[in-house]
């Protein structure tokens, strides 16, 4: 088990380092922050002064070494826009993003999985088809369209909820709903197919033939075996808790990580973008690691495989 965890921890560290390096190089190759931040009207000497202030005039390898050294000493750099500490800027946006993504995740899990299981257990019924139809609609309609439609109905036409912005809990309803709809559809579809596959297995037939109650067959034999693909998808969704709200936060003017990422990328605010990507990578890696460990818990065969 220790070896199983150690290998995955090592992989996680390598992944995070790769993301950091990739982000560092790509950002510096895709436009000069001085020209982006200062705009087209600023004379060259002003641009040169800016580049010197942020060491952008140094060779990229020297900038990279300085960056890595700073990261390991806990310094995530400063925003080029207002000289605030990048980590501080990023962390203060996290609660706003979680205000949307956590309720959205709970809605996805709370509605998507039961709907998929119900549809699988009532395969080919009208309800099954209804669930499938809604699920397909849910994940095929882009979130920017869904968001605007919800705003048109609930904010503009009925005047029930705010159209956007950050305020009380009412402001979070439409963006959280917009974020959850696609995920509900995805989880419903995955849960349904996973359950259908499991329900066709011989051990389900055997359990039923032995006279085990149908409810116990589903709960004790079908659900644990169908859980692995569902856990994988939920793992991705948990990993995207920080990063998954870029479009929705823009539509609803929600001041979370997604908005900060968009603004920082378009301004080539290097330290902030790198800090966000590092955070996203870390959350995704931890989420994947947790999913890996859950596999072992859910399926003893995997645990046994790892032990050998």
């Amino acid at each position, binding site marked *: 088990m220790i070896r199983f965890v150690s290998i995955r921890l090592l992989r996680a560290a390598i992944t995070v380092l790769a993301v950091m390096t990739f982000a560092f190089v790509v950002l510096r190759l*895709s*436009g*000069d*922050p*001085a*020209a*982006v*931040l*200062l*705009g*087209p*009207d*600023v*004379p*060259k*000497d*002003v*641009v040169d*002064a*800016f580049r*010197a*202030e942020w060491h952008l005039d140094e060779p990229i390898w020297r900038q990279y070494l300085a960056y890595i050294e700073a990261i390991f000493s806990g310094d995530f750099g400063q*925003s080029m*826009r*207002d*000289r*605030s500490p990048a980590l501080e800027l990023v962390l203060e946006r996290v609660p706003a993003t979680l205000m949307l993504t956590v309720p959205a995740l709970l809605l996805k899990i709370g509605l998507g999985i039961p709907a998929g299981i119900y549809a699988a257990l009532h395969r080919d019924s009208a309800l099954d088809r209804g669930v499938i139809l809604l699920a397909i609609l849910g994940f095929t309609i882009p979130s920017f369209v869904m968001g*605007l439609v919800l*705003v*048109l109905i609930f*904010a*503009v*036409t*009925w*005047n*029930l*909820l*705010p*159209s*956007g*912005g*950050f*305020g*009380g*809990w*009412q*402001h979070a309803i439409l963006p959280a709903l917009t974020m959850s709809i696609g995920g509900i559809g995805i989880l419903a579809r995955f849960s349904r197919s996973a359950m259908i596959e499991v329900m066709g297995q011989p051990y389900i037939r055997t359990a039923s033939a032995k006279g085990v109650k149908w409810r116990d067959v589903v709960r004790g034999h079908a659900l644990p075996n169908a859980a692995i693909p569902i856990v994988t998808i939920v793992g991705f969704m948990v990993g995207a808790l920080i990063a998954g709200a870029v479009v929705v936060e*823009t*539509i*609803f*003017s929600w*001041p979370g990580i997604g*908005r*900060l990422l*968009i*603004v920082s990328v*378009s*301004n*080539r605010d290097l330290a902030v973008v790198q800090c966000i990507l590092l955070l996203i990578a870390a959350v995704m890696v931890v989420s994947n690691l947790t999913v890996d460990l859950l596999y072992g818990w859910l399926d003893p065969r995997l645990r046994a495989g790892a032990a050998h």
Partner: protein
Amino acid sequence: MLNLNRRQAISLFGATAGGLVLPGYLRAQGARPSVTVAVQKITINNTLDPWREQSNVGERVLYPNLWEGLILRDWMGDQGPVPGLATEWHRIDDKTLELKLRKGVKFHNGDEMTAEDVAFSFSPERVFGDTQPAGGQTIYSENYTPETAKDIPASLPGVGRRKWPALAGVEIVDRYTVRFHNATPDVTMEGRLYAGGSQILNRRAWDEAATYNEWATRPITTGPYFVEDHRPDVSLTYRAFDDYWGGRPPLERITFVEVPEVSSRVNGLLSGEYDFACDLPPDQIGGVMNAPGFEVQSSTIWNHRVSCFNTEHPVLADPLVRRAMTHSIDRDAIVAALWGGMTKVPAGLQFESFRSSDMFIEGWTAPEYNPELARGLLKQANYKGDPIPFRLLNNYYINQVSNGQIMVEMWKQVGLNVEIEMKENWGQILDASTTRGIRDWSASNTINDPITPMVVQFGPNGSIQQYKEWTNVELNELSQVMETSTDHAKRKKAIARMLEIAEREDPAYQMLHQNAVFTGMRSELNWKAAPAFAMDFRGPNWATNDG
């Protein structure tokens, strides 16, 4: 359809009032009303320092509600100079301007504004750093050595020198009198005083701030509103400053909210979330105008859209080709198609403000739309259809992409092969590592003199020359005349010749159209938009509103 207003809905759900009803709640107190303004972007640099935030969007939040200068721009009038923190001014000589300060002006922290605040506002520590004025040495200043987080950003002195290239220093004559000393003669010193950047700060607040950033996010000024809350990239709230020298401000609060999506701004306006929705593209105007109780205020602003030529490109090196390009564009058709006729094609790089200083060149026009002439010029240039790259941003300017596509088709009609290259940011637009051709730009007039934008943007220190896109020896000599001569006739002759050079003989750019801004609002507010990005929420522009 369910007919339920917001207040009923909230009662129904047993919710607290919260942010949903905040503006209405404040209005109900019998106090002054508050307004919420949805904008695409609050500021570019996340600061409220007018030297740092030289953008159009910055103008909207900085003036005239927060920052004020000795001389103010007449935002609701002809954009000319009007007394501000100075009540009168006169020339000592062609290099020296003396101003009498308004007495009793209070800063937001209660301090009275004095000559010391004015001198500090133009000091090396505040703006010029270790730069020296053109043609002289800095005077009336201590040595400046930037070393800590309190120091100004490295780019600030360059911006300061762009606006005040030859300012040698500000002399304190007495508590309420200052003298601005220039190293060279300059007829535009008064104009420079109401351009963005030359506003007056409170020295004590600067000294007390731990860092430059701390000061720059909540500066202490003399304006009618003070900064109550500033959340960069999210919102900016101003509150009325009742000790304002110009009288009690009419609004309790002004909240600028950053809403990047245009559809979200429109929806928020129509649903009552916002009182104003700024930066509407022309195609959204109909939707707002057709909604009962809403209107759109449009105004042309002192900013012209142009396309610049890069003469390092082998084809564009020939002025005949550039001239052909300028005569291939039907500007009136573009204004009609993309702007619904709500802006105009200007008389070249000129603004109406030039008339107030008698510097407007009558009879000058944008290049005539004449495809035959364009074809003839191309033939003369022996143009063989070589591709010309056109670097384009994705609607940095309103209608930029559509405008670019239309121009490419118009150029194609006369035989020009222009290829659009979509770019993501200004860094990529200006990147000199690959061949540049044409790019979009805009040119702003900030004072009532043609020195802006012709000399500032296209002269020897303008970025178009600094980035080696174009240069012209004669125009550079004439820029010198514009900057230092005090002979009106000579200056007027110089700008006329500069227009001929930059728009006809050796085109640096081609004029497209004047820019315009469109602001959606509730009709009952009875507020008027200025011909600028700035939004005037002072008393006279709200006089008829009681909330």
